[in-house]
């Protein structure tokens, strides 16, 4: 998939996010939108996966440690063919297989249940240790929020990942700078994020996480790194792609009303149209 195709797909993923959250009347659009380009790259350019065989043994694993960004995750999985895009409208509804936070028991393509912050990265480390022990080819990816890394368990997991030299593990931090209560720098600053992961013996790559050239280069580089896990610190814009949601903590966990939904979808339709003309 080339850059233009990735951008077009990411736009579809963003539409899926807005659709899911609007129909649920709840959910987390802000971080889903900031990470939409990363979700898209992972599921359309990076991961060795098969939507027809979601449990194939040698698949690459992905753990959404920031589990509340399930709308972005589900929109990527749906667009990749793991389940119908139409089902995004059932997100968070009673009886739906698209739970508020990822549930591996019910959702095709989900490798680990997550949502309680700080826990997903530990599971990812376990998967990577398993592959290392068996000399299996699969790689493990996990996406964390920059607020999430305030959880101590993240650093317990990172210490073990560095210690075990898990070069089959890629940790991505969606650094959109906002958490529920405001700017991460005001709540409890985790900066410098890159230096922290370096101190835990990671190879660290800083990128603009809303730029596919930089995303592509970072994941390619991560594959070359030997003897260390990689941390990609992805600077992103919370709410990216929906102008009235951008850089606003209030859109962390709020659903749009009817008028806001229409406005957001119109903006994304327009963006999609412009990409078609490229």
């Amino acid at each position, binding site marked *: 998939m080339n850059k233009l195709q990735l951008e077009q797909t990411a736009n579809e993923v963003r539409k899926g996010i807005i659709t899911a959250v609007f129909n649920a009347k709840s959910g987390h659009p802000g971080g889903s939108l900031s990470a939409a380009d990363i979700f898209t790259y992972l599921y359309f350019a990076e991961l060795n996966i098969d939507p027809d065989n979601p449990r194939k043994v040698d698949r690459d694993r992905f753990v959404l440690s920031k589990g509340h960004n399930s709308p972005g995750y589900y929109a990527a999985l749906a667009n990749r063919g793991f389940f119908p895009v139409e089902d995004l409208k059932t997100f968070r509804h009673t009886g739906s297989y698209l739970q508020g936070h990822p*549930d591996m*028991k019910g959702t095709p393509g989900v490798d*680990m*249940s997550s949502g309680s912050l700080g826990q997903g*990265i530990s599971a990812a480390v*376990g*998967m990577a240790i*398993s592959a290392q022990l068996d000399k299996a080819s699969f790689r493990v990816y996990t996406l964390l929020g920059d607020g999430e890394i305030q959880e101590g*368990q993240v650093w*317990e997991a990172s210490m073990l990942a560095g210690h075990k030299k898990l070069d089959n593990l890629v940790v991505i931090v969606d650094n959109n700078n906002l958490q529920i209560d405001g700017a991460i720098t005001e709540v409890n600053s985790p900066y410098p994020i890159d230096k922290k992961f370096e101190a835990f013996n990671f190879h660290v790559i800083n990128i603009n996480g809303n730029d596919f050239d930089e995303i592509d280069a970072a994941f390619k580089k991560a594959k070359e790194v030997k003897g260390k896990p990689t941390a990609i610190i992805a600077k992103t814009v919370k709410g990216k792609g929906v102008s009235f949601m951008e850089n606003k903590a209030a859109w962390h966990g709020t659903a749009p009303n009817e008028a806001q939904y229409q406005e957001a979808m119109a903006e994304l339709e327009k963006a999609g149209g412009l990409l078609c003309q490229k």
Partner: protein
Amino acid sequence: MSEVKKIATRESYGKALAQLGEKYDDIMVLDADLAAATKTSVFKNVYPERFVNCGIAECNMVGVAAGLATTGKVPFVSTFAMFAAGRAFEQVRNSVGYPKLNVKIGATHAGISVGEDGASHQCNEDIALMRIIPGMVVISPADDIEAKAAVQAAYDHVGPVYMRFGRLPVPVINDRPDYKFELGKGVVLREGKDVTIVSTGLPVANCLEVAERLAKDGVAAKVINMHTIKPLDQELVIAAARETGKVVTVEEHSVIGGLGSAVCDVLAEHFPTKVLKIGINDVFGESGPAVELVKKYGLDTDSLYEKIKGFLFEI
């Protein structure tokens, strides 16, 4: 009484792991810097490549085990009960219980018989914490033979299992040729029609001695060893209550939320019976030699005999 053989169930756990390691390639053992105490070192010495020391980071260790389980490994996670069920409770609930992953938790140093380390390390709440998690199997073996059998049963069962082991050597009471461990099935160690004593773990041996003494007083006590607390052998509990009319529960755990509560849950619903719950009475423990603490907190044979006799005559 002749000298009985005493073995701490944590020792049995370590040996059983090493035996299972030989039989099954998919077994992995994780510890949090307590391998010498939990006895997972026995496994580590034979299969170092399948042993992961996570360092003093129990919450991460549980999550790592969950991740291993998603790839088909059968991880046995070990630390003290305080940290496995206590500190890492939410990781056990959300990363293991909710996704129903095939993780086995081998928790040692349960109860007040931890001894000198004192209240901070004496976990009298783990059965309550673990049995409330949907789908979690909770096993509390009474001796060496049962502990080893429990480890095999935990491996055979697909899904999360919590096993509770002790630090204090306890008498071997199950060394008979027909011994068989069946998950979820209580064992009647002694028949009796006047009262039922249901126990689990360390005090089971003492309950047998109490029954012996009660017999001399003309009281026939049925003794049930409830090695599996969840799923509880409801039929056995109801039948015993029906037969004897009076029930006593004995555990090295808080009287809140453990075996006693589990038995009362069943009886309240199916066969209301007066129950005497003996255990740690909603207090923290303290430092001291384990045997002295067992006595101070009323789980030795003398204390149990007095309490149960009082209960019988009060009715």
